[in-house]
C-alpha cells in the first residue's frame, strides 16, 4: 500500500497580535513546528504501513525551511518526502492551496491512501483535506476516529458525527482526515533521525507541475480575497455590580439574554 501524509509547518504559537497603532502584525519569534494534528495522521499512516506493508511518503508546501518537518517525519519512520515551494504559490486561499497540493500529489506518485490531520492550528478551517480530495476526484471521509482494517481494495473506518459514529467502507484511492483521538503519536527516533539526516527530498516548483498556468496558483488562483485585517473588539469588560439580590439577578438575566445564553 502506498500511503501519503500531507503535513504543514505552522507557527509555534498562535499568539499573533496586531499593533493597534500601526496595524502591523507583531511576530513573537516563536519557532515554527509541525501542525500538531498532522502527527496523528502520520502515526495512523505508520501503523497501517507496519501492518499491511508498503511505503509512507510525506508532502508539505511552504517556504524552504518547511522541509524541517519532512525530516521530523523521517525520524518517525516516513520513507520519502517532497516539498512544494514557489513564490508564485504565495497568498493562496483554501482552493488554491488544495489545487497546488493536488498537482504536487500527482507529480509525487500514485497513492492508495492520503491522510491529513483534521485541521491546522493556524488556519483552523478543516477544509483543505476535502478540497484536495475533490481536486483529485477521489472519495473522502473526514473526522475519522478509528481505522478498523484494510479489506481488499477498501478501508473500513469510523467517522464521528454529532450524534453517532458511522462505520464506513471506502474504496481506494481515498483521502481521510483523522481526529486527535485516533491514536497516540510516537516520538521521533534518534537513530532514525541520524540515518535520514542526509536523505534527498524532492522539491517541486510551478514548472514541475502538469499545469504551469500561474493564474491557477497563489493569490491569482484564490477566489477569496482578504480585504483587511484588524484586532478583535475585546469584550472582557471588568465590571463590578452592586445592589440588592433582585436587581443583580435581573441585570444578570438581561445580559445573559442579550448574549444568547438564554433562549
Amino acid at each position: 500500500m502506498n500511503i501519503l501524509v500531507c503535513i504543514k509547518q505552522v507557527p509555534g504559537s498562535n499568539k499573533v497580535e496586531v499593533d493597534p497603532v500601526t496595524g502591523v502584525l507583531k511576530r513573537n519569534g516563536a519557532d515554527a513546528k509541525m501542525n500538531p494534528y498532522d502527527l496523528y495522521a502520520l502515526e495512523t499512516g505508520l501503523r497501517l504501513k507496519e501492518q499491511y506493508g508498503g511505503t509512507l511518503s510525506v508532502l508539505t508546501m511552504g517556504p524552504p525551511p518547511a522541509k524541517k518537518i519532512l525530516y521530523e517525519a523521517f525520524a518517525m519512520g516516513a520513507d520519502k518526502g517532497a516539498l512544494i515551494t514557489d513564490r508564485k504559490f504565495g497568498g493562496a486561499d483554501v482552493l488554491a492551496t488544495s489545487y497546488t497540493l493536488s498537482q504536487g500529489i500527482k507529480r509525487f506518485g500514485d497513492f492508495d491512501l492520503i491522510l491529513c490531520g483534521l485541521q491546522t492550528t493556524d488556519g483552523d478551517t478543516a477544509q483543505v483535506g476535502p478540497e484536495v480530495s475533490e481536486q483529485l476526484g477521489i472519495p473522502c471521509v473526514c473526522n475519522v476516529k478509528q481505522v478498523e482494517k484494510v479489506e481488499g481494495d477498501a478501508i473500513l473506518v469510523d467517522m464521528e458525527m454529532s450524534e453517532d459514529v458511522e462505520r464506513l467502507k471506502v474504496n481506494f484511492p481515498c483521502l481521510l482526515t483523522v481526529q486527535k483521538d485516533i491514536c497516540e503519536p510516537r516520538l521521533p527516533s534518534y537513530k532514525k533521525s541520524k540515518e535520514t539526516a542526509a536523505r534527498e527530498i524532492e522539491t517541486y516548483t510551478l514548472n514541475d507541475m502538469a499545469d504551469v498556468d500561474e493564474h491557477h496558483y497563489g493569490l491569482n488562483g484564490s477566489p477569496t480575497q482578504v480585504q483587511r485585517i484588524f484586532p478583535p473588539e475585546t469584550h472582557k469588560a471588568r465590571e463590578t455590580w452592586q445592589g440588592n439580590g433582585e436587581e443583580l439577578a435581573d441585570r444578570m438575566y438581561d445580559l445573559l439574554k442579550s448574549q444568547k445564553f438564554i433562549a
Partner: protein
Amino acid sequence: MGKLVVHQDKIQDIKALMAICPFGAMTENNGKVEISAACRLCKLCVKKGNGAMEFVEDEPKVQIDKSKWQGIAVYIDHVDGRVHPVSYELLGKARELADKIHQQVYALFMGHDIGKAAEEILHYDVDKVFVCDKESLGQFNMESYAKVFEHFINQVKPAAILVGATPVGRQLAPRVAARFHTGLTADCTVLDIHENSDLVQIRPAFGGNIMAEILTPNTRPQMATVRYKIMDAPQRSETTHGVIEHFDLPDASLKSRIAVLGITKKPKEKSIEHADVLVVAGRGIKKKEDLELVYQLSEALGGDFACTRPLIEAGWMDPRRQIGLSGRTVRPKLIITCGVSGAIQFVAGMEHSEEIFAINSDPKAAIFKVANYAVVGDLYEIVPQLIADIQQGRKIA
C-alpha cells in the same frame, strides 16, 4: 491578479522594511531585498514600506456576470429529519442579507422522509425550499450529497450559500466549493452583503487574535460556513408564503465509493469539560440541600454543574465534577461561580473561560480578579431570582 515588486533604490532601512513582514518572507541578499515563498501577499509591506514595495496589477481578469446569480441559499442540516438549529439561524441571516439586495431566500433540503420537516422550514420566511427526498439519501454520504448539491447550484444559481459548521457541513461544503472552483470561508462570525451581491465574510484568523474581512469578488456561488449560536435565531411565524419545489436525480448518478456499514448512537457524554455553560458551587453554599439552587440554575441555562475542592472533601458531589489543579480544567463559553472564593488552584482550572460571572458577598474575594462581572451580593437572594427570571421570561423594559 498581480505581484509584488521591490524598488531597491527606495529602501531607506532594509532591516526596518524586513521587520514589517509578519511572515518573515523578506530576506536580504547582497544588500538587496528578496521575497520568499513565505509571502502571503498580505500587502502590509506596500502599506507600510514608504514606497519601497509596490503591488503591480496584472491585466484585469474577465469579470463574471453577477446578475446571473441570484438569491441567498441555506443548506438545511439535519439528522433523520430533525433540523439542526444552526440552519434556522442561517435562514434568519439569509433573510437579512437577501432583503438588503432585494433577492430571495432559498433552502436546500436533502435526505429521506423529510416532507414534514420541509413544510416546517417554510415558517421561517423562506421563499423556496428545494427538496430532494430519496431513500438513497437517508444517511449522509459525501459523494451523493455533493452530487445533489451540485445539481441544485446548476439549476438555481444562488449568489451565496450558507452552511452550518457541523460535522456534515464542514466536509460537504469544501467538497462542493472545490467542484465549482469557488471561495469558501470557514466559521464566519459576521456576515454582510454589498449591493453587487458580494458577501462580506469576517472570521478570526491566526487562532482568534486577529479578524480578517474576506470577499469572494469574482466567483459564484459564494460559500461560507457558520458555527452554531453565532447568528440570531429568527422567530417562527404562523403564516407561510413560500413554496416547496421537489427535484430528483437518478439513483445511478448518486452512486458512491463510500458505503455505510453501520451506525452506532453515541452515549450522551456527561463531562464538565464538554459543557458550554457551567454553574459552580463553592463554600458559600451552606448545606448540601442548597446545591439544588446550583442544579436548577444549570438546568435552566442548559448547562452542567461543578464545584470546588472543599465540597468534594465534604462528599457533596462526584469528584469528577471538581474544577482546579487537582480536578478538571474547563473552558466553557459561560461560567457562573456561586459562593466561590477564588483560590489560585481553582482559578488555574477555569480562568480561560470565555465569560465569567462571579457571585460572592465578599467584595474582596479573589475570584473577582478573574471575573468579567463581579456580582457582589448574596447568592441566596440572586440565584433564586435569576432562576425565576429564566423560567418566566422576564420582560425587558
